């Protein structure tokens, strides 16, 4: 069995003191900050005794401030690293990449994997074309193969994928280099799709680069990742942080700006303390195939969904399994040329969150499992907290309101005990304000630090549209995030609640292309939130008039959620802000070569819709579909009768009368398809 570390690589030589010092610095900062905030809040609450309500508030605040402090200090350390460029490990990686003599060995083969599931084939294949062309320009394309691993169930999309794939291979001259397969049984979703690749073709490849359907990676970056792996034989996975690109709605442009401007701080900070125990983000990462095969066969968790069954957020678990086996996992935050796309609207963003939420909450069971590296446990906990923090914030806000109400009902008693004169109550407003602004500072300072980095770097400054525009963009983004945060809090609370009630979701494909949110959709998704906002506003205005204005920032977002969701989904507004030079990213200002290739490929899309009917009627589509079907199986008599029944149903009532599963069954049988093909043609004579 392949157990790492394999041999003494240069990562192996680093002394463990470096690890210990960095983690000690980070954890100390986080704990001291939490402790400081707790002492302040405790001193404010302790007056008049600690009620159960106050204790509960303290407990909740402790969890939340720990979470915020962790994020804040990661960003601050990231700021320091990016400012000084003082990072021993990143310097070592840069040295490997700078060494031109360090070429790829002839025997190394790399598979680029693109798992897809009912995505828009035009988008998918434009991305593949762009990456392949970019790779060809490096002169190293001969070392790579590309696999489009389809789990698509819908037959129309399946047939389109096949036709697009073949057309692309012919155009690129990549037959035998870019492969397509549609999995018969899509068990275990994406992780099952990857596992199927590893089990069937893994022996041919030393590395695999896992992508997502909306991933784009520059050829040069792909080659660099391989070189990093070659230089570090104890490393099983290197994650390249993807930057969001290509979306044009206002919502997505704001997020693209935020991720591009602030993201590097957080990734550099995460890398600072996570080091070789980093995490896998599910895509845009290179993986050493042998240890992955040996250690990442995912089990089913006992019990039923949503907490049992298949592991949904497989990436965290795979990284933890690799670490458990002694392999390193790195986040190479300095790698550029790695991209992804964001959901175009607030509602799509929330829908994606719904799936991620279930996967992350499932990790609650894994945190305490035996054998994990402590940092892997932290990854699980952070994933859980990224969703659990929303209901915790909501409870905290509600309890704060309740506590304020209780306080307002108290009649002050100035004469008690043996005091001759009145005893004035001690005011702790200052402490409470300090805690409040302290928390806000930790939330917003990273944005300022990012802005400072942009200001200090001439190239960056220009790339973000100049100091003024970058600052205005950051300000507007901050306002937008203040409004959106409570909306997302309500969404996530709903998701967590649904999952705790054991309501599972399926595996819906994502709506990735730009589109506007209709009033109907906005009302159906935000209607209840708006009503809750109105109720909370009225109640706080009547019962807590002194505190009402403190709640306004939270209430505004919720009350405005419908127009906010609709307006931010506008492509037109996205274009207007772009024309004004707002929310610009370096990738928008000067398109990198792989994105230009992608634009060209998208512009060349021939929108002749191919459907299942083509595989029945068009000799070319049918021949292609038949050529790609796996070898004929031996079917039982019952299965044969079932297929025949489906065929006659299609003949008599039309293809549309078949369910997705029935259609798929029919289109998986070569004999039935041939018979239908002849029948379709014969009907043309009538």
């Amino acid at each position, binding site marked *: 069995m392949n157990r790492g570390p394999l041999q003494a690589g240069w990562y192996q030589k680093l002394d463990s003191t470096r690890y210990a010092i960095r983690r000690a610095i980070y954890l100390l900062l986080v704990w001291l900050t939490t402790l400081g905030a707790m002492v302040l809040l405790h001193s404010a609450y302790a007056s008049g005794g600690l009620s159960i309500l106050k204790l509960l508030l303290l407990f909740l605040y402790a969890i939340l401030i720990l979470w915020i402090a962790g994020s804040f200090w990661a960003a601050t350390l990231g700021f320091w690293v990016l400012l000084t460029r003082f990072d021993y490990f990143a310097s070592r990686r840069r040295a490997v990449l700078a060494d031109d003599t360090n070429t790829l060995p002839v025997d190394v083969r790399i598979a680029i994997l693109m798992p897809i599931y009912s995505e828009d084939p035009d988008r998918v294949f434009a991305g593949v074309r762009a990456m392949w062309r970019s790779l060809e320009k490096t002169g190293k394309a001969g070392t790579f*193969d590309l*696999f489009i691993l389809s789990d698509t169930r819908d037959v129309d999309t399946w047939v389109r994928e096949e036709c697009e794939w*073949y057309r692309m*291979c*012919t155009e690129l*001259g990549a*037959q*035998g280099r870019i*492969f*397509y*397969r549609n999995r018969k049984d899509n068990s275990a979703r994406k992780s099952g799709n990857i*596992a199927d690749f*590893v*089990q*069937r*073709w*893994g*022996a*041919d490849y030393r590395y695999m680069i896992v992508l997502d359907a909306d991933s784009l990676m520059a050829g040069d970056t792909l080659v660099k990742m391989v070189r990093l792996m070659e230089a570090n034989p104890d490393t099983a996975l290197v994650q390249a942080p993807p930057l969001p690109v290509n979306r044009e709605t206002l919502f997505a442009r704001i997020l693209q700006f935020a991720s591009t401007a602030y993201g590097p701080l957080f990734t550099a900070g995460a890398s600072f303390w996570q080091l070789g125990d980093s995490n896998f983000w599910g895509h845009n990462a290179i993986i050493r*195939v*042998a240890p992955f*095969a*040996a*250690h*990442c*066969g*995912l*089990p089913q*968790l*006992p019990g039923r969904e949503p907490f049992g069954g298949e592991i949904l957020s497989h990436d965290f*678990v795979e990284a933890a*399994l690799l670490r458990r086996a002694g392999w390193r996992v790195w986040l190479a935050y300095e790698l550029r040329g790695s991209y992804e796309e964001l959901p175009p609207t607030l509602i799509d963003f929330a829908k994606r969150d719904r799936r991620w939420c279930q996967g992350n909450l499932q990790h609650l*069971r*894994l945190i*305490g*499992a*035996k*054998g994990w590296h402590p940092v892997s446990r932290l990854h699980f906990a952070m994933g859980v907290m990224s969703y659990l923090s929303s209901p915790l914030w909501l409870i905290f806000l509600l309890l704060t309101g309740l506590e304020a109400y209780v306080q307002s009902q108290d009649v002050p008693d100035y004469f008690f005990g043996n005091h001759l004169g009145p005893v004035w109550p001690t005011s702790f407003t200052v402490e409470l304000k300090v805690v409040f602004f302290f928390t806000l500072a930790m939330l917003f300072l990273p944005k300022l630090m990012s802005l400072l980095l942009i200001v200090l770097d001439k190239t960056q400054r220009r790339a973000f549209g100049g100091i003024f525009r970058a600052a205005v963009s950051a300000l507007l983004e901050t306002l937008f995030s203040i409004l959106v945060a409570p909306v997302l809090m309500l969404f996530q609370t709903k998701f967590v609640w649904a999952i705790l009630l054991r309501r599972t979701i399926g595996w819906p494909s994502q709506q990735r292309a730009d589109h506007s949110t209709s009033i109907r959709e906005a009302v159906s998704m935000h209607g209840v939130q708006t009503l809750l906002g109105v109720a909370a506003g009225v109640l706080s205005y009547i019962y807590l008039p002194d505190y009402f204005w403190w709640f306004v920032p939270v209430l505004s977002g919720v009350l405005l959620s419908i127009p906010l969701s609709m307006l931010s989904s506008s492509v037109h507004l996205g274009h207007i802000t772009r024309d004004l030079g707002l929310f610009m990213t370096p990738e928008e200002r000067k398109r990198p070569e792989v994105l230009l290739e992608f634009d060209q490929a998208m512009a060349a899309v021939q929108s002749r819709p191919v459907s299942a009917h083509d595989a029945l009627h*068009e*000799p*070319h589509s*049918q*021949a*292609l579909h*038949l*050529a*790609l*079907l796996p*070898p004929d199986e031996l079917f039982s008599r019952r299965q044969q009768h079932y297929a025949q029944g489906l065929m006659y149903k299609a003949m008599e009532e039309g293809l549309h009368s078949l369910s997705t599963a029935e259609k798929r069954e029919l289109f998986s049988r*070569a004999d039935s398809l*041939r018979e239908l*093909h*002849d*029948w379709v*043609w*014969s009907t*043309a*004579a*009538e």
Partner: protein
Amino acid sequence: MNTPGADLTWQSKAQPVLDSYLRKVGIASPDIRARWVAHVLYQIQMHIEKYAADDIVEQAVERLRGAIDTRLARIANLDPLRERSEVAGVLVVLQDEKHADLVHTLFEDCEGPVDPRLREQLRSAVAADLPRPVRQDARVEMPVQTIELRSINPLRRLLRALR
């Protein structure tokens, strides 16, 4: 049974369908198409008693498709029955416009002997453009890992004992 022998209109129905099919397959020459149509219609006529009038055109299409597959299989040295998906792959390759001349030559004849040079041309076309869905299997074992979840049973037992 309503036999088609008495009524030859089936030929006039089948003829344009077969012609259209051959055009879709990529045979541009009307002469060659007419030759293939005639070949298929003749074969059907030879065994006309076997067919019901209702599905005679379907039978004609099936025969035509079978004839095309057999021709391609012969030239490509494939078994037309056991290697049907490979034959389908060859058909896909030939439908690229750049192989129009080759298609013309391949289908010039319905059943005649195969010129070895033709076989070579087809082989090189297939080598370049055959749709290869996947590489040959190169299997790796991927053992399912054990994740030992910590049971909360001790906690449950404790709570029960306290009760």
